[in-house]
């Protein structure tokens, strides 16, 4: 489904992502992990079109998408959530999600229907008509997912969706992702909360300083000495 | 199009342009400081200059004080004037979206402009001082002495402000607050007070400008309209917060104005200046010298 070859991104002299290559098959949940600053979010930004790669290629369902703007990538079926939630503050949750729904329809009524569906899916129906700026963090995270869902993605990139949540709240999101996966969405998850990654991922990709250092099942990767070395001195929360 | 490319005309245009440029730089120092430091976009900055000019005018015309002595009054006055306006109108909405600040300062500019109109009438006022007609020749070029003094004043002011920001404690506090208000607060800097100081400083430079300008310029309620826009053009060209860039930007625009006037007919020359501005906004909004100074 997704093929990344030689993906590189430089910011002046700093190489944030270095010749990264990996593949993703439909229906997988892949965890993208690594210490802070290893280039995970930058990778996501390049996949979703928010950033242009300095080099390399990204092929999604047979089409090259590297260099496309974010809104075009979204229309191809690749959506992302943001590490720091990015709601539209002064409109209701329903309207927030409608914006995403409008990616696939021009009708206000249809968009609202889709929006309410997605809100129900993430469990936000009671708050559908509340202004986004009045929602709690967990609700905003759910909203973030609902917005992305409304664009009807085949591949969803979740950027540290569990960050800042209590363990119970993490469970809620965990269940949600499983549920969505069962409905046929492929995921790439960037996470620090290990429990989240371990429970969900079929496969993990570990990067450090922008380069791939390990790949495999969660257990393999956790026991990989190179991975330990990368995290040395840093405590990944084994929540 | 009537092109007059004689050497004399061009040399005069360049000389005048440099002096005009120095003036433009002088009036823009305040804005580059305020915008660069506090990210406040003060659309009333032109009207502040107007206030400085009016003050200088009355001190000279009624008080018969030498214009350069009026500096002792105009600078402190504008300092506190700026602080007053800031306290009452701007600081309550510092955390609001930028557009609110722009609208607010637009409102302030309207108030100041029209207060001047109401109080002083629309008349253009200028005063002759013994410096006003003092000029000398360098070859075919005529140099007006008060303008030259203003140019020197501009250079001195730029260097002085730069030195102040670089070496004094309060100056460094201003720079720290500009770069990272949170970190600055954590390091014990009173950030709100620093903003106040920076705004006052930026306003004070306009008092200096008013005094330096009054021997050869005029004042009127609308003087801030065009000069205010020039300030923004210069600051964008020079880069916000960049004092050296401000000076260079001023020179560029000053030259654009005079050379443009020599080449293009009528008020079309001004379009040349705006064209430069628009081009910079589109392609190089960080300014000519993109390394930040303050």
């Amino acid at each position, binding site marked *: 489904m997704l093929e990344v070859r030689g993906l590189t991104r430089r910011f002046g002299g700093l190489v944030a992502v270095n010749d990264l290559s990996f593949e993703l098959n439909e229906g997988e949940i892949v965890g993208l992990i690594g210490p802070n600053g290893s280039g995970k979010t930058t990778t996501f930004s390049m996949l979703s*079109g928010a950033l242009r790669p300095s080099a390399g290629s990204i092929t999604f369902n047979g089409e090259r998408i590297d260099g496309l*703007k*974010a*809104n075009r990538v*979204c229309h191809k079926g690749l*959506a992302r959530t*943001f590490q720091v939630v*990015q709601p*539209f*503050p*002064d*409109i*209701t949750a*329903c*309207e927030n999600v409608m*914006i995403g729904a*409008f*990616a696939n329809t021009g009708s*206000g009524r249809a968009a609202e229907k889709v929006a309410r569906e997605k809100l129900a899916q993430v469990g936000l129906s009671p708050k559908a*008509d*509340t*202004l986004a700026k009045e929602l709690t963090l967990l609700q905003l995270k759910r909203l973030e997912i609902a*917005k992305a869902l*409304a664009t009807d993605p085949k591949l969803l990139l979740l950027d540290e969706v569990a960050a800042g949540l209590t363990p119970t709240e993490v469970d809620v999101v965990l269940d949600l992702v499983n549920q969505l996966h069962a409905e046929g969405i492929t995921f790439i998850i960037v996470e620090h909360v290990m429990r989240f990654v371990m429970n969900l991922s079929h496969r993990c990709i570990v990067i450090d300083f922008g380069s791939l250092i390990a790949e495999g099942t969660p257990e393999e990767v956790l026991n990989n000495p190179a991975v330990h070395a990368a995290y040395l001195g840093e405590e990944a929360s084994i929540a | 199009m009537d092109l007059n490319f004689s050497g004399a005309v061009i040399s005069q245009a360049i000389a005048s342009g440099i002096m005009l440029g120095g003036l433009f730089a002088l009036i823009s120092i305040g804005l580059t400081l305020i915008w660069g430091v506090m990210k406040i*976009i003060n659309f009333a900055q032109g009207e502040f200059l107007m206030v400085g000019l009016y003050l200088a005018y009355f001190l000279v015309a009624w008080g018969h004080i030498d214009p350069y002595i009026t500096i002792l009054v105009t600078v402190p006055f504008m300092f506190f004037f700026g602080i007053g306006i800031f306290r009452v109108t701007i600081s309550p*909405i510092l955390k*609001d979206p*930028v*557009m*609110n*600040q*722009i*609208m*607010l300062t*637009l*409102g*302030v500019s*309207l*108030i*100041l*402009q*029209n207060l001047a*109109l*109401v109080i002083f009438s629309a008349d253009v006022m200028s005063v002759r001082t013994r410096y006003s007609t003092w000029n000398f020749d360098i070859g075919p070029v005529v140099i007006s002495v008060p303008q030259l003094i203003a140019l020197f004043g501009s250079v001195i002011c730029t260097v002085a402000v730069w030195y102040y920001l670089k070496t004094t404690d309060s100056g460094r506090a201003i720079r720290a607050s500009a770069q990272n208000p949170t970190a600055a607060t954590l390091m014990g800097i009173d950030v709100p007070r620093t903003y106040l100081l920076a705004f006052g400083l930026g306003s004070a430079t306009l008092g200096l400008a008013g005094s330096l300008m009054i021997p050869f310029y005029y004042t009127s*309620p609308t003087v801030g*309209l065009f000069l205010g*826009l020039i300030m*923004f*053009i210069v600051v*964008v060209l020079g880069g916000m917060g960049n004092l050296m860039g401000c000076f260079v930007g001023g020179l560029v625009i000053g030259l654009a104005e005079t050379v443009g006037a020599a080449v293009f007919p*009528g008020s*079309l020359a*001004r*379009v040349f200046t*705006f*064209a430069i*501005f*628009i081009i910079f*906004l589109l*392609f190089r909004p960080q300014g000519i010298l993109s390394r930040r100074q303050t």
Partner: protein
Amino acid sequence: MNARMPYIGILVVGALMCLLPLVLSTYYLHIAILVLIWAFLACAWNILGGYAGQHSLGNGLYMGIGAYTVAYLTNRFDLTPWLGLLVAIVLSAAAAAFIGWIVFRYALKGAYFALVTIALAEAAVYVVSNIPALGGAGGIQLEYRGNSLAYMQFAGKNGYFFMGVIMLVFILLLTQWYRGKRFFYQLIAVRENEDAAEALGVDTVKAKIKANVMSGVLCAVGGVFYVQYFLYVGPRSVFGEIVSVQILIYAIVGGLGTTWGPVVGAVLLVPLSEIARAQLGNSFQGAHLLLYGAVMVLTMLFMPFGIVGAFQRLRQRWQHRSATPLVDSQGGEAS
């Protein structure tokens, strides 16, 4: 039925307004016409400024294009202003599309965007002042033709008044209709959070350009009405910064991003300023602008969402559950 309410409300207000000529004297009818013109222009600005969040300070540019196009074509070619109107629409659309494409492609935002619009409008003043065919600095005077529908002129105020009402009702209906449509939602998304909007598939550049075109064309139409009513257009009277700023004051004080906000703003401020100008005009020139400045400052300090915006927020707080989707006003800027 509920969805129809806003439309009915607009039509009812429009109908009621039509009764005004029966009760108002000529002088007050003149003020009412001014209110209609400015309300219309403020509504036009609201599309780009309120809904899309791009505060243009140079909408006078398009107003001027409209006014000058019609004035020139009428005087030079004896062309009926109705056709001139069509030309004005095409020209302003082209200008707005071109300017929008350049400006938004280079992602000018916030203050930089405001500055560029000011620069363009001011440049227009100087350019037009130097074109003799357009009357230079003196502007263009239209010949008075009495009651002549062909030339869009009326002998008394009533004709203009009804035209103004029709225009205002039209733009209100248009705005209301678009509020439920994808286009306006996308504009709001751009206003609230551009990056998030892009990530959700909104082509933000295209949306902004479209908003600029819509806003510009409507401003041009307002400009056409302006020149037909005043029978005169000059560089400063349309392109100047004062004009553009006035338009947005009405929109902001009334309530950004709301349907009725600009109307409320105009209804409140225009008569006030006219009265100020009439009573104090001789002794206090500029009193009305002083008033505007003060109102602007006070609004930003105490009521940044405008009158309608504040009202909507109050109503929202009274209902525990924020019932009606509110698509109004400023959200915080992302950076």
